[in-house]
């Protein structure tokens, strides 16, 4: 086939022409064109990275929580270094002569790999040191300082809420694009949550070196340089002063406080104690091992990472479910004789009048009352089995956000735990359990695990009379595009008409007369609704819990305080939460409550916490 052979040859010839064209272009680019002709022998490009300033973090009123200060990284291009006065150099940077020698030995060993490259000699040189260096920099050719920014905190507020930044490691680089060795990134808290907005964009300048390896000029008049773009400031919902005040109240105690604006779901303050001091935050590497070994675990953001039984504050939820299920009316009365005992089960209670209705049950925090309510829910004949009724109860509870991650922008949020039917089936045997077997759920004990954020969210739900916004700490400036995640109302499965009834009970708990569990923390001039809790736990003394919101009508703030191993809710958590409410609403603490404030400041409850 003569034709096909010629076709083959045509193809071969075309391929050859294409390859020749590529070769010609390569020849042009590599040999002829001057623009690209920079070889290792005489000229080389030097890239100087310009690091952007990281965005600042502002509080809800625009006050700065996290600021930048300028520091320097001292870089060295080993090939440019000439013998210099090591003594003077060490004096400026407060260094050991050995250290300098060691570094230069290293450079000599790897000189072929380093080539014309620059290497970071010292990191995070403070401004004063740099000033001294700048005066004498002519003495040290080859050394150059690159501006970096470091974090600065005008107010001691935030700690692990703010989180820290640190240099990225290989693991981080493997999972994140757009970073290089030597970059910093937010690793926890807000620094992590807002990393994308805060980080900005690196820039660089390209310089040409001349035949003597001296940096000569901008390559192509800077046409290919890239300016660094600073990170954007991020406004948060935090109230800086409330946060600081909360930290002050929580000092020397283990636990957390979360304050939310119910009408928006904005987090006003979130304290985890003990926390990281901001003075340690900026230089986290220095303090890292100290912090990680601290028995009180300051790195741990208890507000979202510590799931504990909620205790009596959970009675509010069970009350609401009872009302919705029709097994309870606010007027229903049950007796309590210092506890509830049926069969072999006995659940103790404190002394109070009997019988009582639902309002009083919340006011006095009666355990027996909620045993009746809970059993009515679970043993409701409406459902085919205890298991079915329990499933329904669980559905109600999860509709408040319990047992799931709420979806806030806080990193490492925990889901907590609401036990399932399957769990009890496994524990007791299939369908071999009844309401009495799980009676501790009635008062928020048992297998329930809720983070303080869950409780604060529940409190905000009650304050809103039936719905919540997902708690968050990002605040959008007017006109900014708002993430609808945080502007959608989430209704619980309990009808909004039942909420005013429990609000009334919570009001009595603070404002009611004798027997009210939290009457000692009533704030003059403010109608506050609250509920105390004393959460038993297997690890030691009871946790002191309190949730409250105020004012009763149109609530501005909902607060949950959770003080670990501190005892009664009314003794520690309630004063702390109420002081926070008063501070937020009135701006100051009234004189008759000053003693309370002082007592909270002074109390040291750390010894009550078992550390292992």
């Amino acid at each position, binding site marked *: 086939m003569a034709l*096909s*052979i010629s*076709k*083959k040859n*045509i*193809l*071969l010839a075309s*391929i*050859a022409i*294409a*390859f020749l*064209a*590529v*070769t010609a*272009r*390569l*020849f042009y*680019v*590599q*040999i002829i*064109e001057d*623009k*690209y*002709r*920079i*070889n*290792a022998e005489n000229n*080389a*490009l030097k*890239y100087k*990275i310009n690091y952007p300033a990281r965005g600042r973090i502002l509080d809800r009123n625009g006050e700065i929580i996290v600021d930048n200060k300028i520091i320097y990284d001292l870089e060295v291009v080993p090939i440019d270094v000439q013998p210099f006065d090591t003594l003077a150099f060490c004096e400026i940077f407060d260094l050991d002569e050995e250290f300098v020698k060691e570094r230069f030995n290293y450079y000599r060993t*790897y000189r*072929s*790999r380093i*080539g*014309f*490259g620059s290497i970071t000699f010292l990191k995070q040189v403070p401004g004063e040191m740099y000033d001294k260096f700048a005066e004498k920099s002519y003495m040290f050719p080859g050394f150059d300082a690159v501006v970096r920014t470091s974090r600065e905190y005008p107010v001691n507020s935030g700690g692990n809420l703010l989180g820290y930044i640190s240099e990225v490691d*290989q693991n981080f680089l*493997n999972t994140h694009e757009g970073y*290089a*060795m030597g970059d910093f990134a937010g690793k926890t808290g807000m620094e992590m949550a807002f990393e994308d907005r805060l980080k900005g964009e690196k820039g*660089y300048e390209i310089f040409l070196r001349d035949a003597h390896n001296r940096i000569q000029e901008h390559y192509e008049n800077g*046409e*290919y340089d*890239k300016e660094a773009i600073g990170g954007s400031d991020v406004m948060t919902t935090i109230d800086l002063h409330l946060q600081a005040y909360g930290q002050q109240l929580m000092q020397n105690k283990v636990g957390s406080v979360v304050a939310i604006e119910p009408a928006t779901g904005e987090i006003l303050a979130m304290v985890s104690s003990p926390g990281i001091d901001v003075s340690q935050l900026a230089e986290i590497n220095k303090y890292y091992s100290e912090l990680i070994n601290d028995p009180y675990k300051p790195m741990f953001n208890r507000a979202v990472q510590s799931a504990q039984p909620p205790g009596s504050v959970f009675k509010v939820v069970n009350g609401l479910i009872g009302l919705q299920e029709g097994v309870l009316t606010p007027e229903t009365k049950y007796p309590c004789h210092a506890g509830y005992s049926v069969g072999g089960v006995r659940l103790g209670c404190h002394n109070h009048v009997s019988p009582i209705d639902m309002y009083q049950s919340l006011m006095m925090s009666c355990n027996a009352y909620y045993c009746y309510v809970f059993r009515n829910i679970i043993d409701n004949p409406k459902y085919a089995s205890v298991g079915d009724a329990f499933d329904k109860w669980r559905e109600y509870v999860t509709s408040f956000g319990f047992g799931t991650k709420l979806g806030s922008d806080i990193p490492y949020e925990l889901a907590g735990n609401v036990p399932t039917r399957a769990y009890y089936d496994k524990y007791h045997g299939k369908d071999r359990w009844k309401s009495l077997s799980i009676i501790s759920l009635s008062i928020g004990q048992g297998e329930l695990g809720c983070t303080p954020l869950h409780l604060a969210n529940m409190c905000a739900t009650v304050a809103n009379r039936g719905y919540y916004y997902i708690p968050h700490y990002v605040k959008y400036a007017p006109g900014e595009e708002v993430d609808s995640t945080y502007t959608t109302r989430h209704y619980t499965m309990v009808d909004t008409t039942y909420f005013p009834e429990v609000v009334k009970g919570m009001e009595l708990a603070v404002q009611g007369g004798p027997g009210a569990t939290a009457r000692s923390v009533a704030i003059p001039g403010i109608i506050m609704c609250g509920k105390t809790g004393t959460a038993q736990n297997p690890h030691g003394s009871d946790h002191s819990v309190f949730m409250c919101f105020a004012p009763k009508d149109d609530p501005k703030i909902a607060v949950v305080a959770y003080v670990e191993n501190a005892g009664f809710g009314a003794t520690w958590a309630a004063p702390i939460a109420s002081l926070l409410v008063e501070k937020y609403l009135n701006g100051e603490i009234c004189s008759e409550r000053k003693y309370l404030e002082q007592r909270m400041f002074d109390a040291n409850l750390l010894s009550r916490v078992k550390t292992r």
Partner: protein
Amino acid sequence: MGTGSIYNKLDWRLIIYYLILVVFGWLNIFSSVHAENSILFDFSQRYGMHFIWMCISIVLALSIIFIIPSRIYQAFSWGFYLMMILLLMSVLVLGVEIKGSRSWISLGGFNFQPAEFSKITTSLALAALMGKYGYVFKRTDCWMKAFATIGLPMMLILLEKETGSMLVYIGFLLVFYREGMSGWFLLAGLFAILLFILGLAVSPFVAMLVLTGSLMLVYFIKHQRALFGIIVTVLSITLLAFLPKILSIEAIAAKNPFPAEIWVALICCAAAVFLLVKNFVLRTKNKFLRNILLCYIMMTGFIFSVQFIFNNVLQDHQRARIEVLLGMKDDPKGVGYNVHQSLIAIGSGGLFGKGFMRGTQTRFDFVPEQTTDFIFCTIGEEWGFVGSLGVLVLYFLLLMRILNKAEQNSDNFTRIYGYCVASCLLMHILINICMTIGLMPVIGIPLPFLSYGGSSLIAFTILLFIFIRLDLDQWRYLKQ
């Protein structure tokens, strides 16, 4: 026949080209990502991973030669093809999106790209289809089947937004050409690309003039009236070139509803249609004239739809890349950035390069995708013109060898498969290298045997070694 004679008959040249390229690629990947104190076998790094891919590839290559019976390729070619089509479809539903294209399947932590493997199955299917006794490409049903065979995977890959892999399929046209497709078709394709560039970079009017002039010339030369043809063509095109000047005269401009290119199109197409009708009515058997005229009308349509295609069909990033390539926009910091950095890297290599692991452009990741699509930068920078040329020569020898071997083979299936292999490799090589040296827009496809990536290395290995195996068979049967 013992294994000893297999060793003798194996095409060692192809295998050696392959091994050199693969090992060279690995060294360059190491050089691109190494840091201080890197070890060659660090499996958390790309070069470590690539070493694993290399081992897997070699095991696959050995089993293709020694274990897997070669009969299955022809016997199950359509089965493989169908499976691949199903896989490509499932990627659209189950796929993982990586860098804007939904073409990856995640299997236990490893991502792989079916599109890379679809070249193998399509090649096998084409070889089976066109190698069958009685297949004549010029017959309508025959060529339609061939186009359908490559069209289906192309469409699916385009839906995955893997434009680069899709373009590789155009290479199969070379196989069609070898098997009987008219060369005019390829020329028309090239001409269309030229018109596309002219229409965008210069103006649709110039594109119209070039089209009109070229087709006139082709017609006259075909009829052996070259001299007369050149005179007529030059005269008429010169006259037409004055059209915009005439139209810009105010008195005319005020009443003129169309720009110049539309006038040219209207006048010439009217003439073409008239000639067509005349040709049809008078039943003159001038098929060539008919084809030229049809071609003219279609190309005119093409020129005018280019603007539309460009503005409405292409994705934003593709449009931007073409604009930069054609010099319509200068954007060294945006889209042009990749190409510019790549050119600096390659250009700074000079004649002999900076030496292994001494590339300065590599240190700050200025060249993006340096181990995958832009691996040629590392070669250009560290090994210089000499090294780049060496790679080109190696590729050229590899392609020549495949084509010669294919041509020598008495079995249609093997020959066509060989052509398919060569076309795929050729397209990958040309598109990739031309992209790094600024001759083509940035199209992300790997450089065969050199780029980092398990899918691509394994796919190219299988592609090549099936051919080596098929080639071996020829000798087996001859000797028996």
